């Protein structure tokens, strides 16, 4: 208990802060911050596995998040029958062609020695393949995108419950990570960072512009939910009773019946959205706790020890007979898969998929700030980092506004400096993140909760 005191203290402070938001702002805001904190925590756990356990830099987090989101769309949306009938065959045929192309390239790679001719053959296969695939897929894509473009214009998904997408998102992201890992893991640390960053941009470009698959920048809205809808809740009896019980002390003060009913209605409307958010919190908590248990187990297992050995001295680990390349690839895939889960969770919570909103600032660099601030190599630290940084990211605007008002109190309300500063309050969050990151890196380079390895 004693040695975990700082962990407990840090988490209690964090929960206290969220409760304070609940009391002073509203429980709705507090819960939405809490939910996004949980999602961020999943993402940081994924990044932490790669960076903290194995020392791999992955700046492609945005790409895996988006793929997770794509999984949510493809799993939950009902299939668009018309689109399938006009263009489905072309798409399926192109898919086979792609698989055939990959197999052909693999065959050439395995069959022949490395030489210039081999490189040229591969290049010819790929170029020819792309041209053929374009000829096959183009009419299909055009037909699909013309099917009621205002509402669908894409193939749709499988119409399954959205919860499944959390697993599928992990598979998608893991698959992408496998390909990227094969290409890029041999690179030196900072090259790897740049390469993964750029590859994730390619992924986003594809998701944004392949309308037949994702609707692109037209967004997919109204995804299915794993939680009940507010409107339905507001008409269910047991829920109204529950709200009445919760607020009985306040309601009893009102004697007039009509007024009492109006007040109750208000409580029910507020309560329904809090209830829905609580449902999400419950689901997310399950994921976070399950992942935490698994990652903790892995950290203290022989496998975890081997990963740390590889991280701390690659050559020595190699000399001891550990397959560094294979382990790096494995951990790259695992970490990315966890990020994929988070991406699917995010879209599940929002109920919409907006490819345009995936930006490296929010989905890559912010997650990295979380990992560094929280404490790389320590799962509790990573989760805490997700909480702290997301909390600050949201609350930076109110804090910034307060600070601006405080420092410019002497100025007139219409003074240009004050007006300008108040307008730019949203950007104080970048300032706060940057300064926070720099301070942590300088004075506590191992993060708030540093890595602590005890042999059990």
């Amino acid at each position, binding site marked *: 208990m004693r040695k975990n005191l700082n962990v407990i203290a840090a988490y209690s402070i964090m929960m206290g802060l969220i409760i304070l938001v609940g009391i002073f702002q509203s429980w709705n805001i507090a819960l939405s911050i809490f939910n996004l904190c949980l999602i961020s925590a999943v993402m940081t756990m994924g990044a932490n596995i790669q960076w903290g356990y194995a020392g791999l830099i992955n700046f492609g987090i945005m790409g895996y998040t988006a793929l997770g989101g794509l999984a949510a769309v493809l799993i939950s949306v009902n299939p668009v029958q018309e689109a399938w009938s006009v263009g489905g065959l072309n798409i399926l045929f192109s898919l086979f062609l792609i698989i055939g192309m990959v197999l052909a390239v693999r065959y050439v790679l395995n069959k022949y020695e490395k030489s210039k001719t081999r490189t040229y053959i591969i290049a010819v296969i790929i170029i020819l393949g792309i041209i053929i695939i374009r000829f096959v897929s183009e009419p299909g894509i055009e037909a699909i995108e013309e099917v009621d473009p205002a509402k669908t214009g894409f193939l749709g998904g499988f119409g399954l419950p959205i919860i499944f997408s959390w697993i599928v998102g992990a598979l998608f992201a893991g698959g992408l990570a496998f390909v990227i890992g094969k290409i890029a893991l041999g690179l030196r640390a900072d090259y790897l960072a*740049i390469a993964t*960053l750029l590859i994730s941009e390619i992924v986003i470009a594809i998701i944004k512009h392949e309308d037949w698959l994702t609707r692109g920048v037209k967004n997919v809205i109204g995804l299915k939910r794993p939680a009940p809808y507010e409107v339905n809740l507001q008409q269910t009896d047991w829920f109204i009773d529950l709200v009445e019980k919760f607020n009985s002390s306040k309601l009893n003060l009102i004697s007039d019946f009509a007024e009492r009913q109006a007040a109750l209605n208000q409580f029910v409307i507020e309560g329904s959205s809090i209830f829905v958010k609580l449902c999400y919190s419950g689901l997310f908590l399950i994921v976070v706790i399950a992942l935490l248990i698994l990652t903790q187990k892995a950290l203290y297992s022989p496998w975890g020890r081997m990963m740390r050995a590889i991280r701390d001295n690659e050559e020595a680990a190699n000399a001891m007979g550990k397959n560094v390349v294979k382990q790096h690839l494995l951990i790259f895939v695992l970490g990315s898969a966890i990020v994929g889960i988070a991406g699917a969770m995010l879209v599940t919570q929002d109920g919409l998929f907006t490819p345009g909103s995936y930006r490296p600032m929010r989905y890559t660099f912010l997650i990295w700030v979380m990992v560094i601030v929280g404490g790389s190599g320590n799962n509790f630290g990573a989760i805490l980092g997700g909480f702290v940084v997301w909390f600050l990211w949201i609350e930076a605007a109110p804090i910034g506004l307060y600070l601006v008002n405080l420092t410019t109190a002497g100025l007139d309300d219409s003074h240009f400096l004050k007006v300008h500063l108040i307008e730019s309050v949203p950007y104080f969050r970048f300032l706060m993140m940057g300064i926070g990151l720099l301070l942590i*890196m300088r004075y506590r380079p191992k993060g708030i909760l540093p890595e602590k390895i005890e042999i059990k």
Partner: protein
Amino acid sequence: MDFLNAIILLLNYIFVPALAYGSQLALGAIFVTLIYGILRFANFATGDMMSFGTMFTILFTWYFQSVGIGLGLLPTALLAIPFAVIFMVGYMLLIDKFVFKYYRTNKSPPVQLAMVSIGVMFVTQAVVRIIIGPSDRRFFDGEKFLIRAGEFKDMTGLNEGLAIKSTQVITILVTVILVSTLFWFLNKTKTGKSMRAYSDNEDLALLSGIDPKKIVMITWIIAGILATIGGALYGLDKSFKPFTYFNNMLPIFAAAIVGGIGNPFGAFLGGYVIAFSEILLTYAYKKFFMYVLPESMEPDGLVQLLSTDYKFAVSFSILVIVLLYRPSGIFKGKVL
């Protein structure tokens, strides 16, 4: 005649824009490469540092415009750049003193410095947005075109017009002057040679009496000049928006790595490789083939290899291919 038309078409839509865009990328790429070669880290704040310098250029341009100082046909920004450079260099030296110096003297691994540069990126981005705001700004004034498409058609009697924007000519001229001065400096002067020595082998350079503080300071000064001018030229040619500048970091990185990171000449050429491939692969060649081929063979589609949406993706794919086959870049990196 048709053949001439086709050539003018390509000049107008591919060659001139790509040359200007490539020059802007090249300046940024040399900036990245210098930092990488001498200070030994990948600077993720590149795009935002460029936008910081451009912001000062814009502020000075506004000031000069408000007091009525201008350059006539040339944009006022050219007059503002030297002042902006002073502020930019000051900012960079300040950052170096308070942020990067600590890690350099501690001999931290490059990864840690890259992380620190992300912190600098956040701060710089915030400062730019707080001072000038996130919106799109144009600060170009003066004569817009050197040759207008219509004038060119009248002059030559061709069907296709060739429009050359004055910003494009300024960009190319300034880049040529700046880059040749830089190469002269690196290859011929004593300080430049010591910079190359320091980049090549730090310990050996220290042994032979090179002052590392001076090298680092000069690197930041050159970097400041490159960042401000590169950013300002991009802003003049297109427009200034902090978010675009942040995104420009990606093709700039691609250019630096394609050219061989640490090698300024490679970075210079890398900028053009990226720019030309982006534009060549996403241009619709329909009109070109209409001129070149006989009427019976005219193409139906746009004859576009990739849609323009994938402009950025092209440069990144080139980067991936280069990393796979020649990880040290086309022109062999790490030699400065």
